[in-house]
């Protein structure tokens, strides 16, 4: 059903959508990869952001602290990463402006890695968001934050089990104490470079009518937008009457999201080696 990945599209090249990022107000000049930081409110997202960038944006113990986007950057290995702190949200259904900002960025910006910061003490509710992000992109790293608090509450979180169930890397951290951040950086760089292959689990326990409806729509979507990475999710959103997505289909914006046939990657790694040598 799913078309094969375009052979011209190299695995290690950046995936992000430079043109759409520009429209979203993000200049990628001088940066190799773009990382989106998503998560529920008050999971320590801003703390992770600060720890990674070395910035000292004020972090409050306060749900809904980051309502707009914050940007920063860091170097790791030979690459320069731009990191965007998205507003904290419980879902990506875009019922409010902050959810819309977060979703549009992940959907249209196609960041190379989306790090979802989750609160280890409230795993169940946080996973709702993770599962929704996984419907849009498979380039996900789950940052299992607040492990110290989980411990304080007598919880043991088995991150390997979680990683296996979700199909994406899971890194336990205590961002406040900067624990686990090195591993997080390594994992981000692995996923960005396509070294870590994730196979997110997508659930299909819907009714037969729904299954068929999705199938019909996915087929049509694949015909019009070959290679659309999240056709199933788009189909579901269209069925749900999501106005932003209807508009995106209407205007043909979805076409930007499929890998361009024979397209030239934004930055060729060979070229980069030459310039930095």
């Amino acid at each position, binding site marked *: 059903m799913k078309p094969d990945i375009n052979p011209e599209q190299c695995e290690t090249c950046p995936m992000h959508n430079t043109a759409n990022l520009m429209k979203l107000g993000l200049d990628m000049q001088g940066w190799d990869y773009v990382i989106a930081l998503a998560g529920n409110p008050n999971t320590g997202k801003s703390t992770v952001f600060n720890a990674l960038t070395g910035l000292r944006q*004020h972090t409050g*113990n306060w749900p809904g602290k980051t309502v707009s986007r914050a940007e920063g950057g860091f170097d790791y290995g030979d690459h320069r990463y731009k990191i965007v702190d998205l*507003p904290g949200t419980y879902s990506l259904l875009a019922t*409010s402006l*902050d959810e819309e900002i977060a979703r549009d960025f992940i959907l249209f910006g196609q960041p190379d890695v989306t790090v979802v910061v989750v609160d280890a003490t409230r795993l*169940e509710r946080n996973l709702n968001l993770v599962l929704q992000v996984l419907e849009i992109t498979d380039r996900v790293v789950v940052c299992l934050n607040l492990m110290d608090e989980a411990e304080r509450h007598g919880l043991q979180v088995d991150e390997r089990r979680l990683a296996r*169930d979700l199909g994406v890397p899971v890194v336990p951290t205590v961002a406040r104490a900067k624990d686990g951040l090195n591993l997080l950086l390594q994992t981000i760089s692995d996923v960005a470079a396509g070294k870590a292959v994730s196979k997110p689990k997508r*659930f299909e326990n819907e009714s037969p009518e729904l299954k068929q*409806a999705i199938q019909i729509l996915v087929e*049509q979507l694949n015909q019009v937008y070959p290679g659309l990475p999240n056709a199933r999710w788009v189909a579901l959103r269209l069925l749900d009457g999501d106005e932003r997505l209807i508009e995106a289909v209407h205007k043909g914006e979805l076409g930007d999201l499929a890998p361009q046939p024979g397209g030239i990657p934004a930055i060729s790694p060979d070229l980069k080696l030459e310039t930095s040598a």
Partner: protein
Amino acid sequence: MNPSPQVDSQEILATAQALRWEVGKDFHEKLMEALYTNAAEIADRAVTRPGEKPRFDLDRSIDRIVTSRRWGFLLMILLFTLVFWITISLANVPSRMISDLLIGTIYPALNALATRLGFPWWLHGILIDGIYLATAWVISVMLPPMAIFFPLFTLLEDFGYLPRVAFNLDNVFKKAGAHGKQSLSMMMGFGCNAAGMISTRIIDSPRERMIAMLTNNFALCNGRWPTQILIAAIFIGALMPAYLAGIVSALAVVGIAVLGVLLTFVVSWFLTRSVLKGEVSSFSLELPPYRPPRVMQTIYTSLIDRTIYVLWRAVVFAAPAGAVIWLVANITIGGQSLAEYIINFLNPLGILIGLNGVILLAYIIAIPANEIVVPTVLMLTVLVTGLTGAGAGAGVMFEADLESTKAILVAGGWTLLTAINLMLFSLVHNPCSTTLYTMYKETDSRKWTTVAALLPLGMGFAITFVVAQVWRLIFG
């Protein structure tokens, strides 16, 4: 490579539209249910609770008291009073030290230097009596209270107390017909109203978001806390014996802040019953766990993020304002300075509402930043009442500790009524231009931005007018 597409994007939409009927109305609910079920299953497999015995939950015990119907509000008031009391009792000493340095020592030195270099009188005046003095005043009047207040406030925030305050207020907001999340945007407003405007993005209903924006100004912002603290300490604390002065001034500031919250409710209630009618949406407010505040880091970030930020903003606006103040006080037409013309023109209105022309002019100059109101009032009073010859270097008058600030204000005709009405007017008047600009960008509506400016301004005039009339009736 691809077969020529038999369908186009419009057809996809048509198909989706048709299929939407087939999948049924409860499709969305089922989808969400499936999502929740999946999340619950995964979480259940990953998390183990060894022992499984119910543990003593400190957070819940604290919450039971802090958010209780009986003690919640009382505790809130006590805590905030404590914070202001600490601020007021500690701020005066560093204030005096800074003003001794900036105004007692450096100001005369600069004067001497300018004279020795033979500056023309107007340049000397603008640079030293205008720009330097305004800036020095802003720093010595504002820095100490801010440097004490902001870290304390941030510690409360860091600890996790502010969401509890929001929780306590949530119910009242609902009763006023506003969104419960407005309590959160109001809390942000206590830091900065422009930030408060942006934080209303968390409210998804446009109607309720507009209410939150229009009333955000009633949350005292960073720029206005120091004004409140200073005036309360000078005029209200002074009414009391020394051992009560601090706590009484703190209570006065808390009283103004509480009045702001009450006004938020009243105005929200009024708006939901007049121009912004509609249903109240419901939402769930999450109480984050209490976290031991990281004291050193909090002090550092609140000094950098808030104190220095606000101070810098004040300085940036104070320097040109200082030049403007000096100019209006020194450009004379027919033997009278421009400032005197304006002040005399504004005086009748000012006196009517228990303020004076100087204060009204200061509020006009301070439209870009509320931070500079008190320093502007001081400068204008000094320049207009001729407490010192401009450039004469009468350093004594410029001591910015509480006693001499009071001496200047009293010489400018201030009474207890002026002080109280200034505190009221500082709470209820137009938001600063940054906040209005932010609101305009967020709403893209000139109409509502104008309402946001004029509604509180009109209310401010009305409230101070009533207070002044009643006051004069009682005290003659």
